[in-house]
């Protein structure tokens, strides 16, 4: 009960954001939310025939994309799909710009056939009616899913069920237009001219012979204009939307493009995780990526190995220092302690930059070695911009995390045990190895866990002194978070790292036993 406030705080500020970030590694709502009609229709398309999908898919594509470009969502979809197939970003961006022109191919002849089609109020009258509430709510939900807002409010328009039966495409397009106009633009639907997409949709309806027949017996508002349009269908473009898209960019006919969209059309995806282990999703199943694009498994392995090396060198360097600290007289020990803590309190960036000055080829260490004659001027040691640099700098930076737990454990070891061992005839080494060392193991355990876990997620030091062969997986995670903006992949890499660390922790518990770890007394 007493820890409830802290628990709540941790949950709200720490666990929830982390979980929601990790959730991005599988989330893929943007595709089904942005082009829902296409996703549904595409389920029946079989890509193995090597043909582009049917006209029906392109019709949905046109209306979905038109909506998306009004809401400026089509480019987000492009960014998402470009992670999987190069070129989709610009395909969607440029197509988004030309959607108005496509609609005008239908709008212009329709307006020539009957001038009433130019009039927003006429359209409003024709499309309005009764019993269309369900349709309105259905379209509102689709909008809400796409833009991520509720889109609640009075639209001031109810579609006519009778017209919806006769002109299904047109009614859907007009209802979408009405919701957007009323809720987002906050304009009156009756006073606004409909989107170009509405004319395109009317063109889709007029290709259906049943619609043309139904229009003959229709007597409601706008009947004359519709009859005129139905009688003059020949003046409308005879090509379909597939041709219209192909004319804008012939990539729309590429089965590869459609296979990618189909592959990533579900609201959850394993794509990011596969990417994070150098695999990829293809229409034929999961495959290894081509060799020249494999990087992450190698980085994971390198991160683990280097973190282990750093931990080991911290133990080797830290153990004697801790022993000295624990056994010197109080006054000397506290001076030594300050020397240990001083770098601990200095900014990480400052220490790393200082290492840069020391390690570079014209740097302090090389200069001294050349001056002393140990190293030839022509072949100075390469100590940074590689794995060596990362190991040296990180060992130094993480050393206090090893020394402090070691020191506090050694402080509790009674010196009398060592004396007892020696008085019983043990050599110095045996006394240390058989009596002292086993008692200090909990300190080594605690220090190693601290150093290892800190090292595995380190970012700044490898970035500055690591060059290319000394960088860690965290550098790639940072790149995807702040630079490439592929947060899904970053989240997948982060999740894997988290699981690996937890797994190693579990192994450690099994082998050494977590009870055997002490941070102090």
């Amino acid at each position, binding site marked *: 009960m007493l820890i409830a406030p802290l628990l709540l705080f941790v949950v709200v500020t720490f666990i929830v954001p982390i979980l929601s970030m990790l959730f991005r590694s599988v989330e893929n709502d943007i595709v089904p939310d942005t082009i829902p009609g296409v996703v549904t229709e595409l389920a029946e398309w079989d890509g193995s025939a090597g043909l582009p999908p049917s006209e029906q898919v392109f019709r949905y594509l046109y209306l979905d994309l038109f909506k998306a470009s009004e809401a400026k969502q089509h480019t987000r979809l492009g960014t998402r799909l470009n992670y999987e197939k190069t070129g989709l970003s*610009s395909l969607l961006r440029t197509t988004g710009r030309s959607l108005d022109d496509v609609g005008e191919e239908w709008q212009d002849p329709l307006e020539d056939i009957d001038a009433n089609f130019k009039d927003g109020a006429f359209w409003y009258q024709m499309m309005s009616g009764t019993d269309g509430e369900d349709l309105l709510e259905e379209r509102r939900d689709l909008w809400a899913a796409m833009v991520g807002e509720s889109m609640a409010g009075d639209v001031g328009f109810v579609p006519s069920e009778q017209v919806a039966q006769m002109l299904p495409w047109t009614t859907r397009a007009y209802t979408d237009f009405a919701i957007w106009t009323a809720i987002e633009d906050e304009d009156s639907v009756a006073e606004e001219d409909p989107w170009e997409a509405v004319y395109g949709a009317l063109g889709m309806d007029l290709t259906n012979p049943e619609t043309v027949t139904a229009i003959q017996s229709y007597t409601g508002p706008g009947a004359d204009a519709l009859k005129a349009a139905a009688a003059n269908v020949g003046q409308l473009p005879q090509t379909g939307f597939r041709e219209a898209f192909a004319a804008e960019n012939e990539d729309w006919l590429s089965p590869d493009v459609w296979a990618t969209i189909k592959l990533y059309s579900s609201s959850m995806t394993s794509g990011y995780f596969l990417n994070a282990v150098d695999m990829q999703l293809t229409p034929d199943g999961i495959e290894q990526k081509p060799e020249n*694009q494999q990087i992450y498994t190698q*980085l994971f392995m390198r991160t683990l190995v280097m973190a282990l090396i750093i931990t080991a060198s911290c133990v080797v360097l830290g153990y004697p220092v801790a022993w000295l600290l624990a056994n010197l007289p109080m006054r000397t020990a506290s001076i030594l302690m300050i020397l240990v803590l001083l770098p601990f309190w200095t900014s990480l960036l400052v220490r790393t930059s200082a290492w840069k000055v020391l390690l570079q080829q014209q740097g302090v260490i090389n200069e001294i070695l050349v001056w002393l004659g140990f190293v030839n001027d022509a072949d100075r040691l390469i100590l940074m911009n590689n794995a060596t640099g990362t190991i040296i700098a990180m060992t130094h930076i993480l050393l206090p995390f090893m020394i402090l737990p070691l020191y506090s454990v050694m402080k509790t070891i009674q010196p009398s045990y060592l004396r007892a061992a020696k008085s019983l005839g043990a050599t110095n080494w045996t006394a240390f190895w058989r009596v002292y060392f086993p008692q200090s193991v909990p300190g080594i355990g605690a220090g190693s866990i601290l150093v290892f876990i800190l090292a595995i997620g380190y970012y700044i030091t490898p*970035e500055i002194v690591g*060059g290319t062969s000394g960088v860690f997986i965290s550098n790639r995670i940072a790149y995807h978070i702040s630079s*490439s903006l592929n947060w899904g992949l970053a989240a997948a890499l982060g999740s894997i790292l988290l699981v690996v660390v937890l797994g190693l922790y579990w192994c450690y518990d099994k082998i050494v036993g977590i009870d055997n770890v002490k941070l102090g007394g």
Partner: protein
Amino acid sequence: MQLIKTLSATALLVAASGTAYADDMASNMTLVSWGGAYQASQVAAYAEPYKAMHPDVTITWDESSNEAVAKLRAMNEANNVTWDLVDVVAADALRLCDEGLAMEIDANELLAPAPDGTSAEDDFGDLLVSDCYIPQIVYSTTVGFRTDMVPEGTAAPTDICALFDTKTYPGMRSLEKRPINNMEWALLCDGVAKDEVYDVLGTPEGQQQALDKLATIKDDVIWWSAGADTPQLLADGEVFMGSTYNGRLFSAIVEQDQPIGMLWDAQVFDLDGWIIPAGLPEDRLARVKDFVRFATDTQRLADQSKYISYGPARASSAPLVGKHATLGIDMAPHMPTDPANSKNTFLYNYEFWADYRDDIDAKFQAWLAQ
């Protein structure tokens, strides 16, 4: 009597416009830029004159431009955009626009025309690379070299391909740790014609060709990730030549008097400019629009070049470029756009990299890690 009437009417008008003005526009602005000398030039050329005209406005600067895209996305998701105007490079502007995080603008409506009446759209010309972008300066990524490390008896390098010629010019190189620019230079020096570079780079074979060319100097390269790295490496004598932004080299050469020479050959032009975050409240938007109109007019853009050697993005600003504010030297010869420097330039293709960035970057990073 007449005079008093006029006076009081004027006073009333002023008072009325004053209050209307106070209601319409927010009195503070948060501008985001890169820090350092570049931000200082913006403060001196734009912000201080603006504050002199509007003493009640407070301007806060945030030095977050290099992570602006990620931060803006996070702000947008949290529905709390605290920035009013953000300085980004063109490629980032394109992505922010794609993501719907930057506001689309109408250049002619938002920006001031040139003094001779040329519309803003014509004055900026091709540099309006995105519907959301208001360019300020043209900078270039170019190569600097240590003049004192050129081997004796050899002429100083004048050709970009000296980068790949470690026989004639031994020594380390420093290149940016990303494919952009390096891949283009590699292809140029591997015999690909300038206008075919992006066609070649769009194919897997072309990408491999560029990486193979880079592989010839892979062991001689230190890869940098911050703009300050190359000038530092040059100053320390760690590298013989390296790529960086021309303004950084300018300050190393002219302001710090380092023995560094500049290779303008095949410099890659890029842009830096403003975007307005999408979804600002009206009062803040009105203030930002007012500021941007002022800060990107012909005189202000020309003024900025007094402080830093980047070329103004407006054609009409070019003749107004003068002398350095403190050193008193002519700035024109240090501009990437100066005719003597821009004999052979390379124009960065934004659309290409928007598409190919993820793909080529994966290959480039895998290649680096090998």
